C-alpha cells in the first residue's frame, strides 16, 4: 500500500514536471519623471486590464534629477524596461547602448505606419542614427505670444517680422509701456538657448549643416541676425529680463508687457481662468521672420536595450509603448484634453475633443500649423556640454557685454572642437 502511494505520488510529480511551462506574468518596470502620476497610474491600470499577464510597476524621479537618476539606474543594472526619454538625452543614451530602436521590438511595418502621423520635429527628436527609438509622449513648440487687447487698444497689427516687433515695441514704449517685451533670461536654463534657436528658425536659419558644421557665425545667417536683433532690442530698453517662464506668467498678466517667446504650454497657463487676471487676452502668432518656423521638441516612450534583448519582455514592452503612444492615440489625447499637454501625433489637431479642450486657451488650427512647420533642435552626444558653454556667451551678447561677432565665433569654435573630440572617442 505504502509503495503504491509512493509510486502514485511520483507519477503525479513527474507528470506535473512534464507539463508545458505556463506563461508567467511579466512585470514591466516603467520609469517616468513625476508629472501627474495619478494619470500615469490610471493609464497603466487601463493597459493592465487590456493585457492580462502584463503588470507595470511605475517608478518616478523628480524632473531635474531624472536623467542622472536614470543613468545611475541603468548602470546599476536595476531592472528597467520602458522609460520616458528626452530629445536631448537620446543621442547619448543611444551611443551608450542603453536603449533599443523600436523596430527591433515592434512587428514589421508598425513603426513606419506610426511615424507617418508624427510631426517632423517630433520624429527627428525620437530618431538617433537613422533609427526610431521612441514614440512621442509629449511634444511642444516654442511660440511667439502676444497680448491681443494691448495690440488692439494701440492699433498695432500682429507683427510678422522681427523688425515689426521692434516697431510695435517702440510704439508701445512711446505710449508709456516701459518694457513691451518680457524675455526668459537665465543662462543656466536650456530653454534660454532653445528660445534663441526658435527665433532663429523663424528667420529660416539653419544652425548647423548636414555634417554638423556650425553655420551660425556667418553674419548672413538668421541666428547671427537674431542675436544682433536681441542685442539691439536690449540696448533700446525694450526688453524686460525675467528669470523663469513661471514668473513671466504673472508678469504678462499685469498688462505691463505685450510680447514674449516661451514654450506653448505657457500660453495655457497665461490664459488660465482659474489663476490669471488677464486670462483670454493672450494668443500665439507665427514666429516672426521669413519662414515662421520654430523649434519643437518631443519627450518619448523608449525601450531599454536589455529589455529588447529578451523576447518575452520586448513583446510586452512594445505592447505597452504602443498602448501609450500608438493608434488610436487614446493616451496622448487624454493628456491633451485633461492636462493640456502637447502631442506629436498630428491627427489629434483635428480631433474634436482636443479642439474643444484647447480652444479655451488657444487657436488650435494655428497651433497645428505651427507644429507642422516646426523643426527639431540639433542634439548630439556633446550638445549639452556645448550649450552650457554657449548660453553664457549668448547672455553676454544680448545685454551688450560682448560683441555678437565674438560670441558667434567663439560658439562655433567650441562646437568644432567638441565635435572633433567626440569623433575620436
Amino acid at each position: 500500500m505504502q509503495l503504491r502511494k509512493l509510486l502514485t505520488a511520483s507519477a503525479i510529480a513527474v507528470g506535473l514536471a512534464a507539463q508545458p511551462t505556463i506563461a508567467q506574468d511579466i512585470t514591466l518596470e516603467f520609469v517616468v519623471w513625476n508629472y501627474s502620476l495619478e494619470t500615469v497610474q490610471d493609464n497603466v491600470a487601463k493597459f493592465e486590464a487590456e493585457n492580462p499577464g502584463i503588470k507595470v510597476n511605475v517608478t518616478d524621479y523628480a524632473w531635474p534629477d531624472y536623467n542622472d537618476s536614470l543613468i545611475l539606474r541603468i548602470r546599476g543594472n536595476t531592472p528597467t524596461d520602458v522609460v520616458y526619454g528626452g530629445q536631448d538625452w537620446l543621442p547619448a543614451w543611444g551611443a551608450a547602448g542603453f536603449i533599443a530602436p523600436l523596430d527591433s521590438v515592434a512587428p514589421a511595418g508598425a513603426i513606419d505606419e506610426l511615424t507617418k502621423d508624427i510631426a517632423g520635429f517630433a520624429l527627428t527628436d525620437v530618431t538617433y542614427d537613422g533609427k526610431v527609438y521612441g514614440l512621442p509622449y509629449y511634444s511642444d513648440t516654442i511660440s511667439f505670444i502676444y497680448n491681443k487687447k494691448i495690440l488692439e487698444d494701440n492699433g498695432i497689427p500682429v507683427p510678422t517680422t522681427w523688425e515689426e516687433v521692434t516697431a510695435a515695441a517702440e510704439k508701445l514704449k512711446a505710449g508709456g509701456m516701459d518694457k513691451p517685451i518680457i524675455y526668459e533670461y537665465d543662462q543656466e536654463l536650456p530653454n534660454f538657448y532653445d528660445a534663441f534657436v526658435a527665433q532663429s528658425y523663424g528667420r529660416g536659419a539653419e544652425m548647423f549643416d548636414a555634417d554638423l558644421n556650425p553655420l551660425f557665425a556667418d553674419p548672413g545667417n538668421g541666428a547671427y541676425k537674431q542675436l544682433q536683433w536681441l542685442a539691439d532690442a536690449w540696448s533700446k530698453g525694450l526688453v524686460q529680463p525675467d528669470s523663469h517662464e513661471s514668473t513671466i506668467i504673472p508678469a504678462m498678466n499685469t498688462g505691463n508687457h505685450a510680447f514674449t517667446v516661451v514654450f506653448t504650454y505657457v500660453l495655457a497657463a497665461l490664459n488660465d481662468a482659474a489663476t490669471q487676471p488677464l486670462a483670454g487676452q493672450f494668443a500665439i502668432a507665427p514666429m516672426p521672420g521669413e519662414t515662421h518656423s520654430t523649434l519643437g521638441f518631443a519627450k518619448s516612450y523608449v525601450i531599454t536595450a536589455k529589455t529588447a534583448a529578451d523576447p518575452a519582455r520586448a513583446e510586452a514592452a512594445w505592447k505597452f509603448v504602443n498602448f501609450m503612444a500608438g493608434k488610436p492615440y487614446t493616451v496622448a489625447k487624454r493628456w491633451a484634453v485633461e492636462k493640456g499637454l502637447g502631442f506629436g501625433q498630428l491627427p489629434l489637431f483635428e480631433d474634436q475633443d482636443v479642439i474643444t479642450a484647447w480652444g479655451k486657451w488657444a487657436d488650435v488650427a494655428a497651433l497645428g500649423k505651427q507644429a507642422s512647420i516646426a523643426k527639431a533642435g540639433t542634439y548630439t552626444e556633446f550638445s549639452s556640454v556645448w550649450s552650457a558653454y554657449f548660453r553664457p556667451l549668448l547672455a553676454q551678447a544680448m545685454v551688450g557685454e560682448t560683441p555678437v561677432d565674438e560670441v558667434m565665433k567663439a560658439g562655433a569654435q567650441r562646437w568644432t572642437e567638441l565635435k572633433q573630440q567626440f569623433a575620436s572617442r
Partner: protein
Amino acid sequence: MAGRLHPLLTFAFGALILLFSGGPVLLSLYGSLVPDKVLLSPDKSLFTEGPNFDTYRYVFTGQLPDSYNAEGTNRAMISDAARQVPQALVNSSLNALAAMVLNLILGAPAAFVFARYIFPGKKVSFLYLILSPLVPAVALVTPIYMMLQAMNLVGTQLGIILVHTAKALPFTVLILSVFFRKIPAEIFEAAVLDHCDRFQTFWRVAVPLALPSIGATGLFAFMLSYSEFMFAMILSGSSETRPASVVMAALARNTDVSWSLLNTAIFIAIVPTLVLVILVWRFVVEGLLSGAVKG
C-alpha cells in the same frame, strides 16, 4: 552697562531674525489659503476674499479645488505630487526614527570603547571614522547605489535607513566619545571594583550618566536623516517609500505646480518639523552643552 545694546537695536535685530525665520512660514501659510488668482492679483487678497482651504482638501482627499473645475482652466498646474506630502512625512519620520535608533545602538557602544579603552588601531580607526564625512556625498552616490542594488535594497525604506545611519554614525561616535571621556575615570574604576564587566560598565554606568547627551545626539541623527535629500532621492523609487525632502524638492523644482498648491505642500511639510524643533531643540542644545562643560 557699557556693553549693552540699545533696546531699539536689539528690537531691530530681533525683528530681522523673526522676519527671516517666521516670514517664509507666514508667507507660505498666506499663499496656501488663497487661490492663485487671488495670490497673483494686485486688487484681491486673503482679507477681501477670505480663506480658502481647497488645496488642503486636495492634498488630503484628492478632490480638485473648485477654481480648477471652472470653465477655461488649465489643470496642468494641479500637480498630484502634492498629494504625496502626508505619506512622505510618515516615511521621513520612520526613516529618521530608525536611523536614530540604529545610530544609538551602534554608535554609543563604539563611542564608549573609543573613549575608555586602548586597543590596536584605535587612533587610525577613530580618524577614519571622523574624517569619513569629509568625502563629498556626491562621490559616494554611485558606489552606494551599486552596493544597495546588489543587496536588492534600492527602492526600499531599509536601504535609505541604512545609508542615513551610516551618514550620521561618525557624528554620533564623535560626539558621544567626547561625553564618555568627560565622565570621571573614578566612576568606572568603582564599577570595576563592583565586578562590572565592560558591557555592564557601559550599560549600567556610562549610559545613565550620559543619557541627556545620548538623547541629544540621537535627535541630531534624527534631524540629519529627516532632511537628507540626495541618497533619499536616488534610493526611493516610488511614493510609498519617498521621504518629505524628495517630495518637497520635486514640488519646488517642477514647473507644473500652482503657487497655491506649492505653498500648501510647504506649509503642511514644515508644520510637523517646526513643532518637533520647538519641542526638542532646547533639549538638544542643553544636552550638547552639558557635555561641553562637564568634567
